[in-house]
């Protein structure tokens, strides 16, 4: 190709380099045109706001004393297109601390096993059977056991003498 030779003698960008840049940008356009919708599609869950958890009635407030008591309740939540008809099962350890109510999630902060009040003979503590994690009555982890944070709590409301549990909140700190 004779035109190639004459162009190469000009100062500045060579024809080949110019072509390479053009093809890179054309390829970039093709790739981004095809991939942008797909990647946005795939990462959509990252950009979705969490669904609002509704407060669920778990029984009369009077039923709970200063000793943690386990309650079972069901949360209705839509998981994509799937919704379990009678909701997902959830449990909480509920106890009164003076006027305050503390509703603890039973999910151990170590590896997600389920903790029990005074399980395994550990009096006055929550005990996790998997690796022997211990928490005090207010859900704070006992130093020297595997968990590295306090148990999560459920937000709660009292309406007409009944206890309603809401979304789970993480607590910072811990021992």
């Amino acid at each position: 190709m004779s035109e190639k030779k004459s162009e190469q003698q000009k100062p500045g960008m060579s024809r080949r380099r110019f072509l390479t840049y053009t093809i890179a940008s054309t390829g970039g356009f093709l790739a981004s045109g095809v991939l942008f919708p797909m990647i946005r599609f795939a990462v959509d869950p990252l950009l979705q706001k969490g669904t609002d958890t509704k407060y669920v009635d778990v029984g009369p407030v009077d039923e709970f004393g200063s000793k943690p008591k386990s309650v079972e309740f069901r949360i209705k939540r839509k998981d994509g297109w799937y919704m379990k008809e009678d909701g997902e099962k959830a449990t909480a350890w509920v106890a009164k601390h003076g006027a305050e109510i503390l509703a603890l999630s039973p999910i151990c902060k170590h590896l997600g096993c389920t903790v029990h009040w005074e399980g395994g003979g550990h009096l006055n503590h929550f005990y996790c059977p998997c690796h022997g994690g211990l928490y005090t009555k207010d859900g704070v982890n006992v130093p020297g056991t595997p968990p590295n944070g306090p148990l999560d709590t459920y937000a709660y409301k009292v309406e007409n003498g009944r206890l309603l549990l809401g979304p789970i909140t993480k607590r910072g700190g811990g021992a």
Partner: protein
Amino acid sequence: MAHNDGNGKVHYVGDSRVRVREKKLLPKDYSEFPGKTEAFFPNFLLKEWMVAVVVLVGFMALVMAEEPPLGEQADPTNTGFLPVPDWYFLFLYELLKFKWASGPFVVLGTVVIPGLMVGGLVLAPWLDRGKDRRPMKRPTATGIALLTLVAIVTLTWVAWDEHEKQLAAQPKGSSEDAKIVDPQNPAYEIYKNNACVNCHGQKLEGLQGPALTGIGGAYTPEQLIDIMDKGKGTMPAGMFQGNEQEKRQLAEWLAKQYPPEEKESEQ
């Protein structure tokens, strides 16, 4: 690294079988080639990719303009549904409607004719052995191919036309193609954000509750508000959780949901 000692022995990199490259690979200078050939990369590929850009832009325009159809969930007990294969199977589908290719002769339609077509294509290089490649210089091959093409296009067109007519003859309203009137109306969003959608469906098609397509003829907006407030049948009262203005908007939009045939006659 081994090196070339000049007496023709092949040298390798380390003890692997990768050869030491003897001279630098430079892009070939192909100015002495006959005709205007050009290197695949980057010269020719750039042109191909430019064509691809044009195609991609057209394709994405199609994708954005046309929503991919999704009918109602499959219901094997639905006897009113008109089956239709994807368009590229239509010609075969139509072929099987001919008397001489159905009933006792169905083998002709399902095996013999498709078999001849596939067999003809498979054997084409051996049936058409002449040296000439120009279509005009091999009239038999070109002729058969053109006739087959015409037949396929005609059959596809006939099948499509017939399907359209059958769809039109079907009782309307129950048809899957029943469309929502004025889906751009903000009332549709209000509808979708309320409990309505759970029973009456994303597209007003009805799930546990009845379909709302075509409800327009049946109730006035006032009556619809009344139903939203007080419920009806298995529908509990007070299902609509929005404010009064939204309720009004929704009722007026629902009242516009005429069945498709009335809508069509309007246009």
